């Protein structure tokens, strides 16, 4: 018993020290809150806030399907449970009507709610911490002009222990530090503007960045690609020439893609179509150009070694060819060459040969339209074949397009397809 006492004491001290450290790390860069509400926004601030809300695509998570804009309720599936977007209309009871600009700034910069609770990082404050106070104030000014909607927030349904403040505190101590966007004097003003938008409000790496087992991205420059929780689309790496790197694209093509959803080099489908539809199509050409310049400059990962011919199980190519002839050839052409201006080529298409093959499978199962934008108001559609083709046929045709016409990618199994259903 006598020996246990010092041991117990030391453990207690260590524990207390750890708690103090976590608490201190959580309170970094937090000046005392100015509770006075003397915020008098100008019309220019409101207009800029509306623009910035688009740049941050706030509406996507803070609005449920068919619901009042910004009144919350959209379910966001995460590996740790479901998070529900909150009501950020100026309703005093259920929204942020009782907040001051300082509260809003603390939420954006430090990830804490009005009452001091730690916010779940599904709200990407790991990115938004880079947003300037001016821009945060403009956003707040805009949100205050929205119609107040009384709609109580739905409680997140996270599993234990992820639903506790203690777990969030530890997570934040490990993976979050408030920051400012430091301009790189070696780069142009345009590049720095792009960097600010891509890494900050744009929160591109929320999807395009890989995440570790704790759901944390490893820094806002990390663009190594990640499987999106939305229907298991794969958000390809923006730094990998074999995935979605735009280093060898013309700047204008990147701008086109973000502005219209289509470009000479590729088009947006799935979650990226939503991003273009709700967010990037509304941004100014100057900002899109800045983002393009920055994205083109991302450090590139090594290109993958060229693959040799792919070996297929007997009959797979024949089965895939038969399905392709029946369902795909009419639009994508007998040689997978696509139809100019309408349907993408499959030969040499990175999305087709990418690993993981999630997007090729998802496109066959769900089809989809490019977003309807001012620059492409009447998009062409791809049918969903999930009702028509079984797992084996889907696997055969995806394998077929991944291995024909010079495409050299790994075959897809029926199990891969089953997982995506």
């Amino acid at each position, binding site marked *: 018993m006598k020996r246990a006492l010092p041991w117990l004491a030391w453990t207690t001290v260590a524990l207390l020290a750890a708690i103090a450290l976590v608490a201190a790390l959580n309170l970094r860069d937090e000046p005392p809150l100015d509770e006075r509400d003397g915020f008098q926004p100008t019309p220019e601030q409101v207009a800029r806030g509306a623009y910035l809300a688009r740049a941050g695509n706030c509406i996507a998570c803070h609005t449920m399907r068919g619901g009042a804009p910004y009144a919350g309720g959209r379910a966001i599936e995460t590996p740790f449970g479901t998070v529900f977007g909150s009501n950020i209309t100026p309703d005093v009871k259920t929204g942020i009507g009782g907040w001051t600009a300082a509260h809003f700034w603390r939420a954006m910069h430090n990830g804490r709610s009005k009452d001091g609770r730690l916010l779940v990082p599904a709200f990407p404050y790991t990115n938004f911490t880079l947003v300037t106070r001016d821009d945060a104030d403009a956003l707040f000014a805009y949100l205050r002009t929205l119609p107040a909607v009384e709609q109580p927030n739905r409680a997140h349904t996270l599993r234990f222990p992820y639903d506790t403040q203690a777990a969030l505190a530890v997570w934040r101590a490990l993976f979050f530090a408030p920051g400012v966007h430091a301009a790189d004097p070696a780069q142009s003003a345009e590049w720095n503007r792009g960097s600010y938008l891509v890494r900050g409000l744009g929160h591109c790496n929320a999807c395009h960045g890989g995440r570790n087992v704790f759901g944390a991205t490893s820094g806002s420059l990390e663009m190594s690609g990640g499987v999106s929780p939305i229907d298991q689309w794969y958000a390809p790496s923006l730094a990998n020439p074999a995935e979605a790197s735009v280093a060898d694209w013309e700047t204008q093509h990147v701008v086109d893609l973000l502005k219209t959803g289509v470009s000479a080099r590729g088009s947006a489908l799935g979650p990226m179509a*939503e991003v273009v539809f709700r967010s990037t199509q509304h941004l100014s050409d100057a900002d899109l150009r800045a983002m393009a310049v920055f994205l083109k400059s991302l450090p590139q990962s090594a290109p993958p070694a060229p693959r040799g011919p792919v070996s297929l199980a007997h009959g797979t190519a024949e089965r895939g060819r038969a399905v392709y002839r029946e369902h795909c050839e*009419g639009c994508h*052409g007998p040689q997978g060459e696509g139809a100019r201006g309408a349907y993408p080529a499959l030969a040499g298409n990175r999305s087709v040969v990418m690993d993981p093959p999630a997007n090729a499978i998802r496109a066959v199962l769900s089809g989809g*339209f490019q*977003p309807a934008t001012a620059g492409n108001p009447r998009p062409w559609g791809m049918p*969903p074949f999930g009702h028509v083709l079984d797992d084996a046929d889907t696997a055969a045709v995806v394998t077929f397009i991944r291995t024909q016409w010079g495409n050299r990618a790994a075959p897809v199994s029926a199990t891969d397809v089953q997982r995506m259903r």
Partner: protein
Amino acid sequence: MKRTVGSRRAHREAIATDCRDRGVNCRRIPRDFGHVFAVHSGFPPVHRDQTHFALDFARERDCKRRGPFGSIVGVKTRHSAVRLLVRTVLTAGSAAALAAGLPASAQTTAHAVPDTIAQRMQACTPCHGREGRASPVGYLPRLAGKPAGYLFNQLVNFRDGRRYGAAMSYLVEQLSDDYLREIAEHFAALDVPYPPPPATTEREGVLRRGEVLATRGDFDLRLPACTQCHGYALTGAQPAIPGLLGLPADYVIGQLGAWKTENRRATAPDCMAFIAKRLSSEDVRAVAVWLASRPVPRGAKPAPSPDLPLPLECGSGLR
């Protein structure tokens, strides 16, 4: 037409490896005709990689296919020297043209599709059929000839969460009102014949109950007849009341059930929700199978306008 990639020996080895990987039996590879052969044998006329080109050619010409139990099941294409010579002569001109002048891009983008709204709506065909004429068997509803206002309302309802269908909601999620209206008008304008109704095996009593509900309603349940809104001929009315004939019974059952459980909603006041909630499950079934058993009159069209006043207030019937 001389191939220039690698040595002949390396070429043979590559082909042998490729054939082995694909489970086909390769024989001696005497010589290759490269480009010319591939062009007129129906092979891809354009390959960015000449090696793959030659591989394809050689595989097809020199490899026998192996069946699942290892037996050789036959030579797919083995042309005699004479046939080969004839074909070569016949197509030499075009092959030379391909090889000599045209850039690769001109050949790869030869495929073209018509720029029509029907072509843009290929996304709808696997479920709703060619020209939106899904048949009355199965589950999926026909679109052709429905009033444009009704189709537009449904597209918007799917987009905005008043109707549930993962595939539909996903497809229309990023489409604008203008485009949805154009899509609705496209399908509304299609005038394609209806097939005869499928034979029904339903009991006479059920069909009779369905007919009573559809044509006379039920006074005790405060149910108007379907015909009061959907038209005497049940072919609907412009701008937004759909016809009820030519639909699969299961689809009608599904929709009335969805209204009962509020999984399908329309702009308030939601008259069909009011009606569906007064229908028992047996009545839902009866009216659905009776409707599905009715032939669609030749040249059936929605009436230019509904017979006013409607028996119920309807949020979307007149828009």
